[in-house]
């Protein structure tokens, strides 16, 4: 009898129920979020790509692979958009759900389990990643920053880059009891990665001893693959390595979340 009741509990639809909560929640803020998703690539590609790019291009672009700075920069920023969206969606919103609004606890009193709460939130993050990276690609294409139709394949890569950050950060955020930890992530995690993982310049420009650090970051792999796709020079082997590394991070984060969510919500 008990087993029959248990079997009637489908796990996928449970996560969807939590995802629907986030959609309802998002209905209040979607307009503003679209504006900022549009504005951010315009600002960065405008200032860095067109403004700074003119100076760079005047120096010769051999080290950029012979393309203009704008074309070099755009795919890097695309991957970074994945990272930034992930960090934004997986820090304060998670913390708020468990500490301030307690919507996680509210869901936990219903049939949903901690894993469903986790998956449901991830589904929403996945949607936000797809939106933001998609908008970025559209803006970059309009600005002439894209060389190849392979940029279409860069969308899932950028989303995957975001997931490589989203799952571990979400798993960690739910364990926090104070929101001060997040400033550390931004300052000492996200910003250095943004600057030194091959988004703005090839990491071959960095001292040799420093480069392995960049190779360890998911962002470098995401940026490298997005760039290869955007320029139309991707190879299957390279793509598999990058994708594999990103999947590893995302999977590790999911595994971590399966431990941290129950621990926080079932006390």
């Amino acid at each position, binding site marked *: 009898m*008990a087993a029959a009741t248990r079997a009637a509990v489908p796990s996928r639809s449970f996560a969807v129920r939590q995802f629907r909560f986030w959609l309802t929640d998002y209905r209040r803020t979607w307009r503003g979020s679209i504006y900022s998703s549009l504005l951010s690539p315009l600002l960065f590609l405008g200032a860095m790509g067109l403004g700074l790019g003119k100076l760079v291009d005047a120096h010769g672009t051999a080290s950029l692979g012979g393309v203009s700075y704008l074309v070099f920069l755009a795919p890097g920023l695309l991957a970074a958009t994945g990272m930034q969206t992930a960090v934004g969606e997986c820090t304060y919103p998670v913390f708020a759900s468990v500490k301030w609004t307690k919507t996680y606890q509210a869901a*936990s009193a219903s049939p949903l389990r901690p894993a469903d709460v986790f998956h449901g939130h991830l589904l929403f993050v996945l949607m936000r990643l797809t939106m933001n990276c998609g908008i970025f690609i559209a803006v970059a294409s309009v600005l002439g920053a894209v060389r190849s139709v392979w940029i279409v394949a860069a969308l899932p890569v950028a989303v995957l880059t975001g997931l490589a950050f989203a799952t571990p950060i979400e798993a960690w955020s739910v364990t926090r009891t104070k929101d001060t930890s997040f400033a550390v992530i931004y300052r000492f995690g996200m910003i250095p990665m943004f600057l030194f993982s091959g988004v703005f310049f090839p990491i071959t420009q960095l001292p040799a001893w420093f480069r392995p650090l960049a190779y360890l970051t998911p962002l470098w792999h995401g940026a490298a693959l997005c760039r290869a796709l955007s320029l139309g020079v991707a190879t299957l082997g390279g793509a598999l390595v990058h994708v594999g590394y990103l999947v590893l991070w995302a999977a590790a984060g999911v595994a971590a979340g399966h431990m941290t969510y129950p621990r926080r919500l079932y006390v």
Partner: protein
Amino acid sequence: MIRARGLVKRFGSFTAVDGIDFDLSRGEAFGFLGPNGAGKSSTMRMIGCVSPPSGGELSILGLDPVADGPAIRARLGVVPQEDTLDLELTVRENLMIYGRYFGLPREVIRERSTRLLEFVQLSDRSADQVEPLSGGMKRRLTIARSLINEPEILLLDEPTTGLDPQARHAVWDRLFRLKQQGVTLVLTTHYMDEAEQLCDRLVVMDRGKIAAEGSPRELIGRYSTPEVLEMRFDPAEHQVAAEKLTGVPAERTEVLADRILLYVTDGDVALAAVRALEVEPLTSLVRRSTLEDVFLRLTGRRLED
């Protein structure tokens, strides 16, 4: 419907619930009465299947809370100690979201929401945001939300803590009606008047253990006298008066920091006896015994300390 044997909850080296037994049958209003930290909320969370027991047995609706959490929770309604409403959504949206957690179709939720909002007297606020509602209204909304899945058992963790007297009575009134409709209620409280008003049966909890069990009337009959004479004295004379009062025939005397209580059959007779000893309290009050007196007798402490 719920059965616990030797139920234990530990947090590290701290034992919040220390081997309690209780049984609950359908249609009953069952209470856990005790001061803060007595283990009431921990017990409630174990029943709500969001806190795995550290020891003992617990069965809810015949199911195991650890293995069958989702199936049990589908049949429970939960009013947590702190409201977990989404403040930025409207009253109705809150019910919609919650109903969707239970997998109910929108149509059903809409129909039930109308009925439930009427029941908790929030129909005219249904399209408003939750944020500006008063504490009592939020509480009533939480109660409406907990009923969206038509639960067999409703768990209420301190349903009226933090509400003003009027709002508390409004909540009690609604809970009383639910009880009349046959909903099984389980509630925790540190208000003895709440326990007396709502519970058919209750357990007195103290430091993780059950100190006594019975209906409010039974408990008062068993552990207290029909009447209590409460007296206040000038602080300077408090001790002296306490010593003199040993001469008054009373079943029991409690010397609290600010008052002296005499447990007697007839309060007026006792007050006359006090005056005969030429002890004059600043104020005196003869009242019936309450659960607070039961608690004091059982634990030597007061409920709301």
